[in-house]
């Protein structure tokens, strides 16, 4: 990567920093949802613990909520930053500048990581005094779970931003819908065996399933299963490449159809 590429990526990071600085609702929103989720699930967890302590052992529900949110936050942060360009009708300004598509992807991924950390860290820290649950006790595997889900989030984002380029703001709702399509299959709150057979087959193709199975093994049985993390990583690599292809294909299609100048509804 040459210094000009770094400067262009830095320029976009500056743009997103200026935007956040100018809008406190945007800034507040980053930390608001993860914290609210953590509080709701924290009390749900307390309630469940009366019925069956095994359901909430080791703070598994709160940990699952926080770890799942790293996928959702990374995806939303990436895609919303891209949507900001469409909402402000600035996309054409970027595409006629010397900014390469891969530099745009790298800038969006970087801002997504920053926003995800800003959102997740306060929620994870607050879970300690509120509910006595610290995800940080998971140690180094936590980093593996987190990074895997962030990569999954980015892969989804690349597909969604590609669709937005091709179909415009009419497809905006996909931003929120697509991650939730994965949720039932990802076994976030229940083990894989809970699902019917056909859903288990789908779940086996998802990197997220291996992350949450690994998390459960670690919390409930104190068993560290790195092979699950490697499976997740391999699948994420495939998703990421598919996401890149989807974005590239959509960008090319948008260039052929003249959609970059008027990227509205």
């Amino acid at each position, binding site marked *: 990567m040459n210094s000009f590429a770094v400067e262009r990526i830095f320029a976009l990071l500056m743009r997103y920093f*200026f*935007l956040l600085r100018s809008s406190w609702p945007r800034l507040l929103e980053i930390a608001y949802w993860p914290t609210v989720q953590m509080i709701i699930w924290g009390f749900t967890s307390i309630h469940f613990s009366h019925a069956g302590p095994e359901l909430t052992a080791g703070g598994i529900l709160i940990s699952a909520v926080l770890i799942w949110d790293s996928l959702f936050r990374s995806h939303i942060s990436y895609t919303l930053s891209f949507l900001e360009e469409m909402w402000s009708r*600035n996309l054409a300004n970027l595409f006629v500048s010397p900014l390469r598509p891969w530099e745009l992807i790298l800038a969006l991924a970087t801002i997504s990581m920053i926003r995800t950390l800003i959102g997740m860290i306060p929620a994870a820290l607050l879970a300690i005094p509120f509910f006595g649950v610290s995800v940080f006790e998971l140690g180094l595997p936590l980093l593996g779970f987190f990074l895997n889900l962030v990569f999954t989030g980015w892969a989804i984002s690349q597909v969604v931003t590609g669709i937005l380029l091709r179909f415009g703001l009419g497809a905006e709702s996909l931003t929120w819908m697509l991650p939730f399509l994965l949720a039932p299959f990802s076994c976030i709150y229940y083990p894989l065996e809970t699902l019917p057979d056909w859903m288990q087959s789908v779940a086996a193709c998802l990197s997220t399933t291996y992350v949450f199975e690994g998390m459960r093994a670690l919390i409930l049985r104190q068993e560290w299963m790195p092979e699950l993390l490697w499976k997740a990583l391999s699948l994420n690599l495939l998703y990421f490449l598919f996401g890149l292809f989807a974005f590239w294909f959509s960008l*090319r299609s948008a260039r052929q159809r003249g959609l970059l100048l008027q990227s509205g509804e």
Partner: protein
Amino acid sequence: MTEPENILQVDGLTKRFRSVAAVEDLSFALSSASIVGLLGGNGAGKTTTLSMLLGLLEPTAGSIRLFGNDFVRNRYAVLRRMNFCSPYVDLPQRLTVRENLLVFARLYGVRQARERISELASDFRLIELMDQPVRRLSSGQKTRVALAKALINHPEFLLLDEPTASLSPDVSRWIRNRLSEYREKKGATILFASHDMREVELLCDKVLMMNEGRIIEQGSPEELKNRHSRNSLEEVFLALNEAGGFR
């Protein structure tokens, strides 16, 4: 390598959307330090042509050579030397004028960005507005900011799509003067798409008249007026229209 005198050479440029030809077999050249007007009615193909010259739209056929480079193959090397301004595009509205200019200065790799921004702020009478969010500006002020952004990288080739549309005559004249000065000072080439015949006549050295995706007439404003025995470009345009040149 010495660069050709024509900074832009377009040959057989065609854009079809399915069976509809938006631009058909367009060929023209722009010499350096010229201001060229792209004239035509609605749907004539002006914006489509500009979009292809900016790399926003892929041509169906034909070639674009900019600064002697094949534009499709060397897009990013060439884009550093160009810029544009269009009413279809806005700057981020929540960012201040200064923030916007700083972001685009970095995107274009402008050296001594802050000095360049101060220079533009002074040239475009933006000093008082620098810390205002763009969304709070009037349309005339926004146009000045958009033009400052378009000149941030000292472009050698500037593409403007109706930059004075919906502006009052005094602001339009002021902008025309800034563009003339920029051409004189930097030797830049400006391609200017407009509906405003009078503006094109005042500003441009050469005019390309388009209709239904084709160039139907070209030359300097004086040449066109003499050729058609008319007193203004508007009359030439109307005469061509009556003769069936424009449909």
